[in-house]
């Protein structure tokens, strides 16, 4: 058993790609070894900016010899079959074994030296390596076929035991030599074997184990801060990134001018983190202090004083930019910033951000005044929505787009607006995807909900919907955001209703614009004909055109052909998102389907309550048996060509309050048996009970009502034959079954339930 070392040296590998590269090396090495029949145990895989390294312990020195047996044709088979088999195996007829009239080929594969396998595997791994972005370089790049790597590949160390594995790719040949730290030990160093690799590099100022470098940075940065009486703001992302940028990390504490602390702490942290990859520190009171920790890649001869001074200067330049923005932005009120939003296109078909803000403001106000978002002051909702996007035109958000919302909140407070409005501006983008904080303050909820509903309505109206992996406008995230806001805040609203408002808003605008343009064309036609119109006449013409466009038959057509389909599509999109959202909570997607399939249910809070009751019921014995009975009934009805039309459950409070059709009647019938009558009686009780329970939203009671049907339906299937030779009896029993399925459908569409 022998250890193997592989080092692939290159020019600086981007920090963000190193973890993926380690996984790729692991995967490709294992695949190559598996193909050669070599068992690989634990691998050590390390990365630095300048190298990927792999150590495989205890590889066998050779692969095992294997004997493979292939069954061929019968010896009595036609000669073509035998010829084909010989071709396939590469043997001659006398090498085959005839066992009881069947040919067998026994192929012995001798073992191969592992060193030989490795020499072939290394170039194959390098060629197959998938980088997020790769490049060509040097003389060889005159040809399109030249090797691609993340940055120029500069060296390969491949040692099996103490033996060099010779290989060459892209003009780089393997050897024993590598290089140490770029500045501390620029010369070549010779590696003897896997066992001295890490220590020889360490002696040359390279810590090859990325996890060790991460520990040095994590602990060193914390210590540098603690030594100055400060606390490091932990940031594991920065730890990993800095470990990916250094071979010999040295955390150093620096200070910046305290005057910069007037800038919001998030801005300072972001500037330090994103632009400079620095940690920030807190003082004893937990407030941001005027310090930073940078991670150098050298043990500087002066202990790092020059490095800290240089970094301080760069940070100061960045922070003075930030402070300049902070001061400039506050010179203008948010309401005035908001006026500039008409210069930003939201989407070419959907107008400017100012248009969107106007729609969102109306919608937020309506959500509050209609009581959909309870305890919310409509005026505040409208004000917050009008100002929510204003920070998009500020200098600070121009520089740091990720501060959108947050800066608006700061600026709102700075100009004396109340907390409800400032918080709503700050948090209205939330929740950004599942798992993010969900706002609960009423004004914030109204604006957050309005913003997302408007976005979804707009894009669905113009049929710009997510397809496959493409979701350029993040509509899935917006839909999840709506669901989280509704469910966490227990907001009761029929989505059909809640979507009609924003959709008519979007439509009204676009129809209005078209009418406006049409009217302007008319004005032009008048003028071309030599009749000039007064301003008053022009306005009148435009207003009339808009009114006409939005009224009468046009309006109905617009609502029927554009709004209705878009709304239906959006609601089923919500249903899909709801399944995704609820999967984590362990809610079954088929049960959500079963309730959605009834139609008319678009109050998601109520829907979930019903689904959860249904899930509990399905987990019970009664539920499982009732489902079996239902499936059997549905099958019989299907064979008899009777449709299992679900009775609509009715959605009190929704636009569509159309009650379910009356279930098929099963009149008293002379030929009925006791079993038939028992089922009929049970239905007569269960149906109204279930229906009333659904109306009152007592879903557990509705399930209990269904459960009362289990025994009679089981008895029915055990005791009578539906397809009785007597046609009248058969019709009667089919009617009973139709009523049974109808009753079940009053609670959920059981045909959607799996199992």
């Amino acid at each position, binding site marked *: 058993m022998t250890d193997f070392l592989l080092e692939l040296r290159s020019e600086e590998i981007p920090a963000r790609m190193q973890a993926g590269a380690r996984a790729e090396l692991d995967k490709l090495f294992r695949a190559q070894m598996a193909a050669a029949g070599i068992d690989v145990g634990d691998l050590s895989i390390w990365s630095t900016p300048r190298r990927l390294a792999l150590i495989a312990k205890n590889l066998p020195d050779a692969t095992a010899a294997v004997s493979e047996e292939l069954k061929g044709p019968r010896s009595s088979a036609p000669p073509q079959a035998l010829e084909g088999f010989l071709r396939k195996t590469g043997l001659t007829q006398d090498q085959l074994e005839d066992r009881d009239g069947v040919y067998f080929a026994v192929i012995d594969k001798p073992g191969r030296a592992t060193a030989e396998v490795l020499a072939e595997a290394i170039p194959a791994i390098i060629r197959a390596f998938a980088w997020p972005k790769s490049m060509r370089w040097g003389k060889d790049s005159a040809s399109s076929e030249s090797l691609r790597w993340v940055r120029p590949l500069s060296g390969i160390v491949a040692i099996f035991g103490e033996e060099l594995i010779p290989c060459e790719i892209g003009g780089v040949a393997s050897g024993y030599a590598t290089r140490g730290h770029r500045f*501390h030990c620029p010369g070549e160093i010779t590696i003897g074997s896997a066992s001295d690799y890490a220590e020889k590099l360490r002696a040359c100022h390279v810590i090859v184990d990325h996890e060790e470098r991460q520990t040095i940075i994590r602990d060193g940065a914390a210590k540098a801060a603690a030594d100055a009486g400060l606390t490091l703001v932990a940031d594991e992302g920065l730890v990993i990134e800095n470990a990916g940028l250094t071979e010999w990390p040295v955390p150093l504490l620096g200070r910046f001018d305290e005057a910069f602390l007037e800038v919001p702490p998030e801005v300072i942290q972001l500037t330090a983190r994103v632009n400079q990859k620095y940690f920030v520190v807190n003082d004893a009171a937990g407030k941001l202090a005027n310090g930073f920790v940078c991670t150098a890649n050298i043990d500087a001869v002066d202990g790092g004083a020059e490095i800290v001074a240089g970094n301080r200067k760069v940070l100061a330049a960045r922070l003075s930019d930030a402070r300049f923005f902070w001061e400039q932005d506050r010179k203008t009120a948010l309401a005035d910033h908001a006026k500039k939003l008409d210069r930003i296109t939201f989407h070419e078909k959907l107008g400017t951000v100012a248009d969107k803000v106007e729609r969102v403001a109306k919608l937020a106000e309506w959500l509050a005044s209609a009581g959909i978002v309870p305890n919310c002051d409509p005026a505040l909702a409208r004000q917050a929505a009008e100002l929510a996007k204003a920070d998009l035109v500020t200098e600070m958000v121009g520089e740091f787009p990720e501060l959108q919302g947050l800066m608006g909140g700061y600026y709102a407070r700075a100009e004396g607006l109340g907390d409800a409005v400032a918080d709503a501006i700050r948090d209205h983008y939330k929740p950004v995807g599942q798992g993010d904080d969900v706002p609960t303050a009423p004004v914030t909820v109204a604006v957050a909900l309005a913003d997302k509903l408007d976005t979804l309505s707009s894009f669905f109206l113009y049929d710009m919907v997510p397809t496959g992996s493409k979701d350029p406008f993040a509509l899935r995230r917006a839909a999840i955001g709506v669901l989280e806001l509704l469910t966490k805040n227990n907001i009761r609203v029929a989505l059909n209703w809640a979507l009609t408002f924003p959709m008519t808003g979007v439509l009204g605008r676009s129809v209005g614009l078209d009418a406006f343009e049409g009217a302007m064309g008319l004005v032009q036609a008048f003028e071309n004909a030599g009749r000039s119109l007064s301003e008053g006449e022009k306005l009148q013409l435009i207003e009339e055109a808009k009114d006409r466009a939005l009224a009468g038959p046009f309006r109905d057509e617009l609502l029927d052909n554009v709004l209705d389909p878009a709304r239906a599509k959006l609601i089923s999109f919500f249903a899909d998102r709801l399944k995704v959202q609820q999967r984590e909570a362990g809610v079954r997607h088929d049960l959500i389907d079963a309730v959605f399939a009834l139609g008319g249910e678009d109050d998601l809070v109520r829907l979930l309550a019903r689904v959860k009751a249904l899930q509990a019921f399905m987990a019970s014995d009664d539920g499982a048996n009732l489902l079996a009975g239902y499936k059997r009934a549905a099958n019989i009805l299907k064979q008899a060509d009777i449709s299992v039309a679900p009775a609509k459950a009715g959605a009190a409070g929704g636009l569509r309050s159309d009650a379910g059709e009356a279930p098929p009647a099963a009149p008293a019938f002379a030929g009925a048996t006791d079993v038939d009558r028992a089922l009929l009686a049970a239905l007569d009780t269960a149906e109204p009970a279930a229906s009333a329970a659904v109306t009152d939203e007592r879903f557990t009671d509705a399930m209990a009502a269904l459960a009362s049907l289990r025994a009679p339906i089981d008895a029915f299937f055990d005791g009578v034959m539906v397809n009785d030779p007597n046609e009248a009896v058969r019709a009667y029993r089919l009617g009973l079954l139709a009523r049974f399925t109808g009753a079940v459908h009053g609670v959920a569409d059981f045909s959607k339930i799996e199992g």
Partner: protein
Amino acid sequence: MILTLHAYWGARGCAILQPYDMRVGAGTFHPATTLRSLGPEPWNVAYVQPSRRPTDGRYGENPNRLQHYYQYQVILKPSPADLQEQYLGSLVAIGIDPLLHDIRFVEDDWESPTLGAWGLGWEVWCDGMEVTQFTYFQQMGGFDCKPVAGELTYGLERLAMYIQNVDNVYDLRFSDPVGDVPGVSYGDVFLENERQFSKWNFEVADTDSLFAGFKAAEAECQRAIAANVPLAAYDQAIEASHLFNLLQARGVISVQERANYMARVRDLAKGSCKAWIDSQSDAWTAKYPGWTL
């Protein structure tokens, strides 16, 4: 510093060229980079290029933002195997000690939408400050670079500020006093330029004539391409690119139009590169058999 870099790269086989005599946004626009990075011929040059970025003007009030500044540009084709070492040697030559200062290669992939060009490389940090853009060109004008050229772009003002240890670009010493002759600072030379050009770029420049100039340059570029004089065509592409930058500084190009204008400039640059390749490809294939586009 420039003389040191000239001597350093001259000794490594680079021809020392002069700045291109047109208004360009970066050293990359010099035809010695754009056009010469195409094709199989070795090409090693170094030059200083004054660069104009109208939107970066700050009326002389920002310590390190300028609408006119200098880049030192080195092109090595094909990229040599020891390009990083050669580059680090140049930093030592101008006085940066890598055991005292923290030099780092930080991922920064370069892309020029107006040139239809991209490459992979790094921004080189010195104690956290970006001092050089280091790129392996992969495509230029939409064509693969075969072979790949290495491009080094030094920010001369930033490096000088570092070496002279000043915080404000205008405090840089341009020349030292000699006898009765006083020394000259960067501010003595350029502060007034920054004030006046910032004002012209942002407030004064006549947008109608800029738009007209853009159209004229665009038309002339296409004419020159048709007449098979790609070098002249490329001059017009550079002109159109700069006029577009000025129009942006004047704030008269909306977000939607911006992409459209960039695509028009890119078409001119690509057309010029294609015409350049067409005019040279016979000579290239004769001299480098087996070379293909």
